[in-house]
């Protein structure tokens, strides 16, 4: 890799919060209105409505078969929806051919034309529009500069590395100045380190060119680190749409809690409540307090989820002055450099807890008795059943867990 931009994590984050978009106030670039797709008797996409704001980095996150690629192909024009309408910049394009849409795609396999040079590939869109030769050359050079491949015009795609091909595909799509760029698992074939670098690169380019990106991925980390908003998909439906923090911190249901990241899920009976919290009686845990959520008042059996990193590990004598504590025993510990992942048994349950390695190495030994503590704000009530959660966890592991 040559000449990667000096974008560090803080830059990436400030850029994202700076461009937080409100779908109601910004003009919509993509609007799906009850769009669905049936192949034979199989519903690849159930009726779905979706609004993507102009300039947004929007991700469709799901396992294979969740309908995310079908959604992208319908927007690109490669598939005709069974029903529903597709709008791009408020223009109905439902029955337009791909070449009649102001949309370009970066394909998963890059789909570079093998019989053309890099310059020929990148300039293809301009050539079929019969632009002037020197204009094409000028814009090809600029597009290659944008993806940091200046001087590669005369190479063949077969002479490039995976990451370079990926960037040629990106330049070829961006040169047409589309209103919307579709990316279908564009980093799927790259190795981990290159993938991380390309994530920053993609985000930088998106901010540079300022156009809407619709990004399809099964990789949670990719979706979380780049997107303004994420739509989690499963079984041909969107299960939750929100900012990455919403999806992670406040999963809409047990499926999302299981699919995005790891969650410890407890089941308990509501025994009391006050203005801001419910008190649940959870077997083996005693009373657990959890923040109240509107719309979930009358249930007496509830599922609650706690993220592994929200739990603090303390010595048993320390009560931590936090609402929820329970005593457990360390049964597994896996050291991962920056943090250690513990499995901690509480009665018949095993909780996943992640602790930063502040000292040198893991701070707890196997078999040690510890107290776990977490606040009522960090756990949350999940609509849906334990079955949904299991489904989510299975789909996440099937698509290679990212977080």
């Amino acid at each position, binding site marked *: 890799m040559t000449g990667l931009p000096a974008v560090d994590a803080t830059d990436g984050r400030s850029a994202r919060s700076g461009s937080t978009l409100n779908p109601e106030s910004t003009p919509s670039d993509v609007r799906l209105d009850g769009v669905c797709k049936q192949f034979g008797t199989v519903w690849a996409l159930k009726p779905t409505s979706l609004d993507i704001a102009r300039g947004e980095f929007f991700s469709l996150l799901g396992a294979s078969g969740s309908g995310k690629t079908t959604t992208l192909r319908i927007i690109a024009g490669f598939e005709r929806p069974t029903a529903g309408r597709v709008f791009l910049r408020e223009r109905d394009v439902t029955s337009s051919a791909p*070449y009649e849409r102001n949309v370009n*795609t970066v394909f*998963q*396999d890059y*789909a*570079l034309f*093998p019989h053309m040079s890099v310059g020929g590939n990148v300039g293809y*869109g301009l050539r*079929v529009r019969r632009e002037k030769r020197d204009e094409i050359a000028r814009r090809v050079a600029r597009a290659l500069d944008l993806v940091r491949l200046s001087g590669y015009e005369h190479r063949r795609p077969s002479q490039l590395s*995976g990451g370079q091909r990926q960037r040629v595909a990106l330049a070829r799509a961006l040169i047409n100045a589309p209103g919307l760029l579709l990316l279908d698992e564009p980093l799927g074939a790259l190795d981990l380190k290159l993938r991380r670098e390309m994530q920053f690169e993609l985000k930088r380019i998106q901010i540079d060119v300022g156009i809407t990106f619709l990004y399809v991925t099964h990789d949670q980390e990719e979706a979380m680190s780049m997107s303004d908003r994420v739509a989690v998909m499963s079984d041909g439906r969107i299960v939750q749409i929100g900012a990455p923090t919403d999806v992670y911190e406040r999963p809409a249901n047990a499926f999302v809690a299981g699919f995005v990241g790891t969650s410890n899920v407890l089941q308990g009976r509501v025994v009391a409540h006050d203005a801001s919290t419910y008190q649940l009686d959870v077997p083996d845990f005693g009373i657990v307090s959890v923040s109240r959520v509107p719309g979930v008042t009358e249930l007496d059996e509830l599922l609650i989820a706690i993220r592994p990193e929200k739990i603090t590990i303390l010595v048993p004598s320390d009560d931590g002055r936090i609402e929820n504590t329970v005593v457990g025993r360390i049964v597994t510990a896996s050291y991962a450099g920056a943090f250690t992942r513990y499995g901690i048994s509480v009665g018949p349950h095993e909780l996943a807890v992640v602790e930063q390695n502040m000292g040198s190495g893991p701070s707890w030994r196997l078999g040690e008795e510890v107290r776990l503590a977490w606040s009522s704000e960090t756990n949350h009530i999940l609509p849906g059943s334990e079955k949904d959660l299991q489904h989510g966890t299975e789909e996440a592991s099937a698509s290679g867990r990212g977080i």
Partner: protein
Amino acid sequence: MFPRASTVSRLALGTVAALVYAFLYLPLIIVIIYAFNSATITSWPPGQPSLHWFNVLWNDPDPRDAIANSLKVAITATVLAVLLGTPAAFALQRFRFFGKESLGFVITLPILLPGIITGIAMLTWFTQLIQWGVLPGLSLLTVTIGHATFCIVLVFNNVLSRLRRTTRSLEEASMDLGADGWQTFWRVTLPGIRGAVIAGALLAFTLSFDEIIVTFFLIGAQNTLPLWILGHIRQDTNFPEIDAAAVVIIAVSIPIVLLAQFLTRETTQSSSPAKL
């Protein structure tokens, strides 16, 4: 790496290999030796090296006409094969329609049938057409049609296997970048299958050029080169002239077959990532 064989087994293997090659190529070499010789009869040892028999062949109007006829038939049959075989391969690979599964078999069948069957069948059919006055008589045209039936198969198979190996996403990418159906066909699809079409055409050409059985049934008053050779062998005169004609056939077909092999081996350079 394979383990190194012992000296004895390498010697044994080498001998067997040499014998196999001799079995395959010695007859060809002998034909070539006689063709470049001045002797009037084929006997061993051969006489002086000479181009005498090529000179005879060149000045003999019969084989010259025969070569011209063979070229006419082969070229026309090849063009027909390309025009019919390529679209057939596309239809089979790209579209769904009734009878799709059997179509591939029906197209491939003529090359599997023994030539004698094709010859009898087509002769019967053409005789009928001649009786009805649709065709004037057996001629190079009927031979060409007969050859086209199996030449199509070569183009069809080559293009089909290339299409199966190319991804649709190249065409989708082209449409996505603003090219309509025609632009996509000329700029992306055709360059992708060009090698396969040419390779199929070259193989079809060589197959037609030396075909003898179907030709024998369907020919009229004219001669093709293989038929002329066959007829000449029976007369048992000017034998080395036939060797010279055989050398002409070898000289035409070997480079064509090699080129066809090279073109099918030159696959579409993979633009897909190495690891998937």
